[in-house]
């Protein structure tokens, strides 16, 4: 929404200034559009709020840079560079003059930096400072009334959090810029800025006071200001608060204040304590300092899994093992059983009689001071742990997806992505150097990819397709083959093992065969997969990694699936205490997995480092393969999850394993590896890994445990569930037992009507489906809205280019104008002409936007009001306004001449501007007030007219208000309005064509745009 104020304010400084202001406003518009999706209804208000500040911000911004830019090119012509740079590539057709001034055009020159660009003859040099002063004056003088309106009345509670954030950003900018003011015009600037600052600040303080304490602290933390400023704001808020407090002091308020303070203190200390307890902080920092965040993500993942295991160990040990140990300390080991040492590997023998496995737990109700039902404890501990794991996984997955996927750019490896992912945490000189090199290579690659995205010939495509097909077939069959061979190996082993208690050492050692083969497969087959990967030609690195990950996941799934099948269908039927047998098998798998992980890092990293450095330097030092290592972790964790039912203390083994692995990997990493060559996408990979951990691995483990407890008969001779038809019947028995106890009716009711009732699950499923459907629809709506808003931004951009072109054209024709016309009266006339021009332009935009807004409102609200009337009338209005703008436009080119003339012109012009600004604000707010009224069907038309009328009126008011010294300006301006055509007839030979034809073009353009928007809307 471009308001008259915005343009009129800067009507005086030459082209670049206008451009900058214009751009600023358009962009603030864009900001608001971002918010739009979330708080549509606040839109109009927001716009108002930001608009005012955007203008001033920009002004100050500019001034600041002009005077005290620390990076300074001493060149005051930066303005012109910017102007040069800002010409969009598309708008080149009409910029001959600009190209003349900037040799080679911006594409060749301006991007190279400022040093090579000659000054703009029009706005540089001596004119610079005077314009500056002018700016300052106007800022200063317009301030009081403009601010009263803008801030105190325009920022009521309606403004959403989103807006305030934006707005605050703007406010901050201004405030933080204050100390940068140039000493040369310090008196004026300082005062002006200080006034503004105070106003901004007061608004901010008012906003903050309205918030609750917690929110306020959060909001203050979120202010992008320097510390001192935040402190100032805070003290102001507190002062304000206490002053209002004293009026309405109550004991309750005081109490609650104290309470919240205590809570806050508590919160801080908890946060601090958590940080102190953070494991391996120093190591993490070292790793990220040397290898960057992508490698760090592996270690974070490892730590996260470790936390899972610690939690599971704590609850298993606390609720299952300790009660049993308290009740009966000595394990009931047969007397002839001795500890032979091999048990550590195999987990059989001595361990079989301890609390390590399922078989070691009793089914009794322990009667001490309280009764403790072991069966129930075992069942509920495992169930609760699995459910909690599931919830944690789902939440972290959802958060991760939200942060890393929903918003992420679809286009892979775009330049910004590379630039933004620079690791600020890197602290080693070597890593920085490597990273710079890698980044350069990646940037070059992305460039060459963009330029030579050649069409592949059919034969090449077929070849690629063949390779894909072949490698997928090969890898799939490898995975299946592995699964099948493990199954047969298990069957073979099972035939040999017997149920006897006393195994010979050889028998015991034979049990190690299966875990050995499984772990070996897990180590070797992925290497084959990496080999296949070398022959495939994936278009992007990411796809390559995904293919590798999918294949590995498939392999691990097939192995685990076969093992589970074997345990549930073969082992469960043969052995008398089959749960313990499965527990042992899992124990062996976990242990062997650990050994092979160590071997893997030895072969994978140490050996290839030796080969890379000593034997074949061509290969080079290996990189840390995050994907492979994370998959290994996921596999290890899945084993622990499956094993939790059969061996409740398996998490303890897992904790030790992960703990050692962490240090091992860290040493291996720092000794053998180099920082990764490819950067980026680390966050997304992490999301994928969490998702993989959840599905299929966690879900698989959960369903297996659930299947076992619901469908399989527990062994009759050992374990907590002996004698039951399945583990779940523990709950049934318990409920029966409860029926006898009065006061526990609700438990029974819940059991009967919730847990055991199909209708409950049916209804729940239905409700969830409905909710999902609704959210899906909402998402679709939002997507449409986003597309719409994007289109709007593009349209704004087009608008801007168009105006820039226009201004360029006018500037171009300026030197042809005979200089004799340049008397003072003319100057003022022109300046006012340009002013009215700009306000007219603003009106067009205003009208356009309002009708757009209207359309959208209708769109969003879903009310099928036919838009034709208001659209077309708004269109007409826009056309008219635009044409008028067009007519007045011609005056603009003379505007720079003001700068060369005497200071009285400046004074006048300044007043002029100041007036315009305040009037502009009127314009600004009145129509917005209307737009708040949603019932107004054809409000676009009305508003546009209002805006125009008001602009006209303002100009009328102006005449009455102005002191005599400026009345000349007024008259001149009025005449300028009348003389629009005449003026051009005065010099018809010079510029006959532009007004007419360009007006036509403009009208057409406007129509087309309006049409576009109309189409987009529907």
């Amino acid at each position, binding site marked *: 929404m471009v308001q008259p104020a915005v343009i009129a304010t800067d009507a005086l400084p030459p082209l670049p200034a206008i451009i900058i202001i214009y751009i600023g406003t358009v962009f603030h518009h864009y900001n608001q559009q971002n918010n739009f999706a979330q708080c549509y209804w606040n839109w109009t208000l927001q716009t108002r709020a930001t608009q005012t500040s955007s203008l001033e911000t920009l002004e100050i911004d500019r001034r600041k840079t002009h005077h005290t830019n620390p990076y300074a090119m001493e060149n005051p012509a930066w303005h012109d560079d910017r102007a040069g740079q800002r010409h969009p590539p598309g708008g080149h057709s009409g910029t001959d003059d600009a190209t003349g001034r900037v040799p080679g055009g911006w594409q060749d020159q301006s991007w190279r930096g400022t040093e090579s660009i000659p000054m703009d003859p029009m706005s540089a040099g001596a004119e610079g400072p005077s314009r500056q002063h002018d700016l300052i004056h106007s800022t200063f003088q317009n301030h009081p009334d403009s601010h009263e309106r803008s801030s105190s009345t325009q920022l009521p509670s309606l403004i959403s959090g989103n807006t305030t954030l934006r707005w605050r950003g703007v406010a901050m900018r201004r405030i933080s810029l204050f100390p940068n003011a140039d000493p040369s015009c310090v008196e004026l600037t300082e005062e002006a800025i200080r006034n503004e600052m105070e106003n901004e600040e007061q608004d901010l303080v008012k906003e903050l006071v309205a918030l609750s304490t917690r929110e306020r602290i959060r909001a203050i933390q979120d202010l992008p200001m320097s510390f001192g400023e935040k402190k100032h704001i805070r003290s102001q808020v507190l002062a304000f608060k206490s002053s209002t407090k004293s009026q309405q002091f109550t004991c309750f308020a005081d109490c609650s204040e104290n309470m919240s303070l205590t809570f806050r203190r508590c919160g801080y200390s908890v946060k601090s304590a958590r940080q102190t307890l953070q494991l391996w902080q120093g190591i993490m920092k070292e790793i990220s300092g040397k290898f960057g965040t992508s490698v760090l993500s592996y270690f974070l993942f490892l730590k996260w899994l470790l936390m899972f295991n610690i939690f599971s160990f704590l609850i298993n040990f606390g609720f299952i093992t300790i009660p049993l140990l308290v009740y009966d300390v000595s394990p009931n080991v047969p007397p002839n059983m001795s500890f032979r040492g091999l048990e550590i590997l195999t987990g059989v023998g001595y361990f079989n009689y301890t609390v390590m496995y399922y078989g070691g737990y009793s089914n009794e109700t322990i009667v001490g001071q309280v009764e403790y039902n072991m069966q129930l404890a075992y069942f509920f501990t495992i169930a609760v742990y699995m459910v909690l794991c599931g919830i944690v996984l789902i939440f972290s997955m959802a958060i991760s997806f939200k942060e890393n996927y929903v918003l992420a750019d679809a286009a892979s490896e775009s330049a910004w992505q590379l630039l933004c992912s620079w690791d*600020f945490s890197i602290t080693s000189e070597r890593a920085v150097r490597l990273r710079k090199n890698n980044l350069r290579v990646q*940037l070059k690659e992305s460039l060459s990819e963009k330029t030579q995205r050649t069409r592949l010939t059919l034969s090449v495509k077929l070849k690629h397709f063949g390779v894909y097909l072949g490698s997928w077939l090969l890898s799939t069959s490898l995975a299946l083959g592995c699964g099948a061979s493990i199954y047969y190996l298990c069957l073979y082993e099972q035939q040999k093992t017997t149920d006897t208690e006393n195994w010979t050492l050889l028998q015991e050692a034979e049990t190690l065969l299966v875990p050995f083969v499984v772990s070996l497969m897990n180590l070797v087959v992925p290497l084959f997969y990496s080999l296949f990967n070398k022959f495939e030609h994936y278009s992007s690195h990411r796809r390559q990694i995904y293919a590798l990950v999918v294949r590995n996941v498939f392999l691990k799934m097939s192995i685990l699936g076969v093992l589970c099948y074997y345990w549930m269908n073969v082992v469960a039927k043969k052995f008398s205490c089959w749960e313990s047998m499965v527990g042992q098998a899992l124990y062996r798998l976990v242990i062997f997995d650990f050994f092979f992980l160590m071997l893997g890092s030895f072969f994978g990293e140490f050996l290839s480092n030796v080969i890379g450095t000593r034997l074949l330097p061509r290969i080079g030092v290996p990189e840390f393969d995050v994907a492979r290592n994370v998959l290994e972790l996921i596999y290890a964790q899945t084993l622990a999850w499956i094993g939790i039912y059969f061996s409740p203390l398996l998490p303890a083994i897992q904790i030790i394993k992960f703990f050692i692995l962490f240090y091992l990997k860290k040493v291996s990493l720092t000794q053998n590896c180099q920082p990764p060559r490819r950067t980026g996408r680390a966050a997304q990979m992490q999301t994928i890994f969490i998702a993989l951990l959840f599905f299929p691995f966690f879900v698989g483990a959960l369903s297996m445990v659930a299947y076992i407890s619901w469908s399989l008969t527990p062994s009759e001779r050992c374990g907590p569930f002996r004698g039951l038809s399945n583990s779940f019947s523990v709950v049934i028995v318990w409920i029966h037992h409860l029926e006898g106890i009065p006061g526990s009716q609700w438990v029974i009711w819940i059991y009967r009507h919730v847990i055991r009732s199909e209708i409950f699950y049916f209804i729940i499923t239905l409700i969830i489906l409905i909710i999902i459907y609704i959210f899906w629809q909402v998402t679709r709506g939002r997507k449409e809205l986003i597309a719409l808003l994007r289109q709007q931004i593009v349209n704004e951009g087009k608008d801007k280019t168009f105006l820039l072109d226009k201004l360029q054209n006018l500037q171009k024709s300026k030197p042809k104008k005979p200089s004799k016309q340049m008397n003072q009266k003319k100057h003022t006339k022109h300046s006012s002409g340009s002013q009215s021009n700009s306000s007219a332009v603003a009106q067009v935009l205003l009208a356009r936007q309002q009708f757009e807004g209207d359309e959208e409102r209708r769109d969003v609200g879903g009310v099928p009001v036919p838009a034709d009337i208001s659209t077309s009338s708004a269109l007409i209005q826009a056309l008219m306004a635009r044409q008028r703008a067009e007519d007045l436009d011609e005056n603009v080119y003379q505007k720079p001449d003001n700068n060369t003339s005497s200071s009285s012109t400046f004074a006048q012009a300044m007043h002029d501007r100041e007036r315009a600004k305040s009037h502009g604000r009127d314009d600004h707010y009145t129509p917005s007030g209307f737009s708040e009224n949603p019932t107004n069907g054809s409000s676009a038309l009305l508003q546009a007219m209002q805006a125009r009328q008001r602009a006209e009126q303002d100009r009328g008011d102006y005449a009455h208000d102005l002191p005599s010294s400026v009345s000349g300006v007024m008259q001149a301006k009025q005449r300028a309005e009348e003389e629009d055509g005449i003026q051009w007839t005065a010099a018809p030979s010079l510029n006959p064509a532009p007004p007419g034809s360009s007006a036509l073009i403009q009208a057409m353009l406007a129509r087309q745009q309006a049409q576009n928007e109309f189409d987009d809307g529907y």
Partner: protein
Amino acid sequence: MGTSTSQLSKEDVSEYQELTFLTKQEILLAHKRFVELHEDKKNPPDTRHFRLTMDKIVKLPELQCNPFRDRICHVFSTSEQKDGSLTFEDFLDLLSAFSDSATLEIKSHYAFRIFDFDGDGTLGCADLEKLVNCLTGETDDTRLTSEEMRQLINNILEESDIDKDGTVNLSEFQHVISRSPDFVSSFKIVL
């Protein structure tokens, strides 16, 4: 050694906690490091008003290798002389913006200011060129050729310059940042 002047009072710490994203430990550690950077062991500085010069700040191992170290100092400095010197509070500001718990809004805001080399409020072509040079190495043999640079900057603008004005402004930049998920995890400096 006059520890009384160099120690932070309890009120100060709680105020710092309230105004930054840092925890108590981080604040105390930051204080320790800040005092250490001031090499004059005899006279520990009064941290409330003392300014560490930029050369001393960039000696911090966490900043030493950062290609943006000078920019970071300048952005966070509240010095009137524009010399990039930092008070302790500025230093806390820096750490707060680069901490784990800082919001994307804050991070992207400061990233923008760091990347805005000429400080004009937008990332123009010159800024982008400097940025790329900063990230790929400044020496002649590592620098991108001018043709590549031009193309790259065109790509960048094409990608992010939604309103086609030839520069990337704060909101456009934040839009870009919100779509690159790696930014938050990599825009981080921990003491």
